[in-house]
């Protein structure tokens, strides 16, 4: 499935529910489902808060599986990440004034089996997360 959402924080909850409902077809455990919901929440929030800052744009979420290997991608066409390695460092954040904790990528990495980040400045960011159920 592929879901396009406007970059409003009100859509964070919806994105979580939609991916969870889709993945539920595989009968994941409650813990696995909570992990996927949380990781999706982090990536979608980042796209809205960092990718588009206060601009409007579309966030695209896709989810699919082969066997019980689930892949979720979250993509924005926003401002991009100049240094991905630094961005992934725990506690690193460029929006301390919003009280972002800098723990978003850390949560994704802990809750999914693999997290890859593709980003280009002024072009956008794509986060690909994989989890074996």
């Amino acid at each position, binding site marked *: 499935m592929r879901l396009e959402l406007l970059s409003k*924080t*009100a859509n*964070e*909850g919806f994105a*979580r529910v939609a991916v969870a409902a889709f993945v539920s077809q595989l009968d994941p455990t409650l*813990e696995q489902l*909570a992990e996927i*919901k*949380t990781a999706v*929440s*982090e990536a979608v*929030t980042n796209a*809205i*808060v960092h990718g588009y800052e206060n601009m409007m744009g579309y966030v695209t979420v896709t989810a699919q599986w082969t066997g019980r290997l689930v892949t979720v991608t979250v993509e924005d066409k926003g401002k991009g990440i100049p240094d991905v390695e630094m961005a992934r460092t725990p506690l690193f954040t460029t929006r301390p004034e*919003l*009280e*972002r*904790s800098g*723990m*978003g990528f*850390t*949560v994704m990495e*802990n809750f999914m089996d693999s997290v890859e980040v593709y980003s280009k400045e002024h072009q956008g960011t794509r986060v690909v997360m994989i989890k074996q159920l």
Partner: protein
Amino acid sequence: MKESYTVINKTLIASLSGELDQHSAVQVRAELDRRIKEGCNNLVFDFKRLEFMDSSGIGVIIGRYKLVMALGGAICIACPKPQVERIIHLATIDRLIPIYKSVDDALKSMRGDRVG
């Protein structure tokens, strides 16, 4: 996200229910800060009915920790559910802020700390 607030002496008990993400964090933060500045220097986060929290919640907790500490108060967390507790552990907030199994235990600890 629905919140309810109770004040016992100078301790604010903030009971959050639903989902704490960046969207709900904005309103919760403003509401908490207003009430703390109105004269509550202790804060208990009651997470009994909090069903979901992402790292936005970490920001909310640490921000309030700083404020309450600056006012010479105490802060703690009561009854987080497993999903919420995992985020708290991951961010090692539990090294800064005590976590209790009930709001009563949390309140007792506050009274030990300082009489509200």
